[in-house]
């Protein structure tokens, strides 16, 4: 039993890294633009399908395929921001939730129409091969997915804290109006941020698609988990998103081992409710001030 729990903790941490990748995109978009991108789950699935398609038709390895899919998804994100988010002038917060939900439905519809509703899984040599730690077998993909997440998150960190664009982005996160006043082109920052968030979704999609069966409808489950993660961590907090993803996945996996897999998602949600009763702003969120 102890061994099983240890194994669950390890897989929880490794898959938690992947969720951290997807959730950081979501929380970054929220931080800069104050909108919740409900389409993030659908974009993860879209990224997974793009990799699947590249591999099936051109035999591109799924991880190398990211070099192609991530730029495509980046531009898709910029386009979505430009066409659908930017025109929202009044009641932006709430309308953007509905708009991104509509985008999620369209993506799901297009995917259902093109590839059907059958479940698929991404494949590569490292998806099925595994190695042994103690007496626990761990598939390589979990480690590869985790390493991929760490590399991209370090890249994100460097972008945010070591570049001029990062300064503008963080300034916009702190105070959108003030950032605009000191001459930051906030619309450009918003578009690029949205693109980065969506590109991170694509990367998360590969790791997700290689460890889970998915179909176009899988995004509901995914977005519910991602929303829980970013709310638990505190909206707009990257550190919160990282810690919350790993905590949630470890809790879920341990529940699956000691109780039953069907309850792991429920426990996931109950932890959220319990935390919010005590800390309505999430673990690392700032108390919402008065907004005029």
């Amino acid at each position: 039993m102890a061994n099983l729990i240890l194994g669950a903790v390890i897989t929880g941490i490794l898959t938690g890294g992947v969720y951290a990748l997807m959730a950081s995109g979501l929380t970054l978009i929220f931080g800069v633009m104050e909108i919740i991108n409900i389409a993030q789950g659908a974009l993860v699935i879209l990224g997974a399908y793009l990799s699947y398609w590249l591999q099936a038709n051109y035999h591109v390895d799924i991880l190398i395929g990211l070099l192609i899919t991530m730029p495509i998804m980046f531009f898709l994100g910029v386009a979505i921001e430009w066409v659908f988010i930017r025109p929202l002038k009044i009641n932006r917060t709430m309308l953007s939730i509905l708009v991104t939900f509509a985008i999620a439905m369209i993506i799901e519809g297009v995917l259902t129409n093109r590839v059907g509703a059958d479940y698929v899984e991404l494949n590569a040599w490292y998806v099925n091969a595994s190695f042994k730690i103690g007496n626990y077998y761990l598939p390589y993909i979990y480690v590869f997915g985790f390493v991929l997440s760490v590399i991209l998150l370090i890249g994100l960190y460097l972008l945010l804290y070591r570049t001029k664009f990062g300064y503008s982005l963080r300034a916009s996160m702190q105070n959108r109006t003030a950032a605009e006043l000191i001459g930051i082109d906030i619309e450009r920052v918003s578009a690029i941020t949205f693109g980065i968030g969506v590109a991170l979704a694509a990367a998360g999609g590969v790791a997700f698609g290689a460890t889970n069966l998915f179909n176009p409808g899988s995004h509901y489950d995914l977005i519910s988990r991602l929303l829980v993660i970013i709310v638990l961590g505190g909206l707009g907090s990257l550190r919160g998103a990282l810690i919350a993803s790993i905590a949630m996945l470890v809790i879920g996996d341990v529940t699956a081992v000691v109780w039953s897999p069907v309850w792991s998602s429920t426990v996931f949600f109950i932890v959220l409710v319990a935390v919010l009763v005590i800390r309505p702003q999430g673990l690392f969120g700032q108390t919402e001030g008065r907004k005029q």
Partner: protein
Amino acid sequence: MKVFRIVFPLVLLAAFIAFPFVFTDPATTTVAVFTLFFAAAGVGWNIFSGYTGYIALGHAVYFGIGAYAMALLCQDWNIQPGYAPFFLLPLVGLIAAAFSVFFGWIALRTRRHTFVVITIATFFIMQLMAYNLRAITNGSAGISLPIPFDWTADFFNIPFYFVALAILVLAFIASWWIHNSKYGLGLLAIRDDEDRALGLGVNTGPFKLIAFVISAFFVGMVGGLHAYFNSSIFPPFAFDALFDVAIALMAFLGGLGTLYGPILGALILVPAQQYLTVQAGSSGYNLIMYGVIFLVIILLLPEGILPTISKRWNRWRASRNRAEATPDIVTSPGAENSVAVESSGKGVEQ
């Protein structure tokens, strides 16, 4: 205008009552029944989300609880098919309302985005519960309800139509009363500036929670009625993510926070949705079309139909007044934001 305010809903009601006698085709009345389901749920939802500005995207929870409450009550009390299940509806609504006290209490500790996300999370919790609590809900196998076999195909929709209409009328009266009461004024104050409302002595916490529970009551009744109409329930249909956004979209299309907005939205969208589902089938086109309609509505009419019309109307009237050239007439300062002004004006009359 005053007479119009009383006559118009009565005319509308008469039209609704006459409808099934004019169009007797079961296919048409089925669409009409669904329209009334959504109109009633939308008016209920609007009492909370429209008036307070808190957009709840988890009211499918109360729809689902209503559906399961109906099914389980029918099962446990061995209710015979026929008119008897309709009398359970108030109880079903109360059960949904009881759940909403707890969920509302948690969700309303937060504001804005966090609130929206928590309502979505409660939705997923309850959907998972419906799958997992097999002892109660029978899991994904679902529960069947009594089927009124002695109602002919031509007649079957009629009782459901009128019961749904009754719920809609009740919800509308509640919405009307709240809209014109001091309580409703408090809700609108919360929507406009919650902190200031609190500072001025609006008891925001209980105000919001009461509106939340009232809206859950109506949505729960619709859920129970819908379950009986379909005569079986399954977790994905009782707790349907599309329902969450469908009622929000209807209210947005018609005009969020207006009395007639959700009804108008339902009248437009439900027939469109039913038509698309029939035309497009399950190959994903229906989702695409629905998403596109969604986007078009929000990008072109972000305020909804009724507020846009009333704004145009006010502007036209203001310009006509100006044309009559009495320079000391000040154009109404509320023309920019007619909804809020209209509602606060009514509050003053009281």
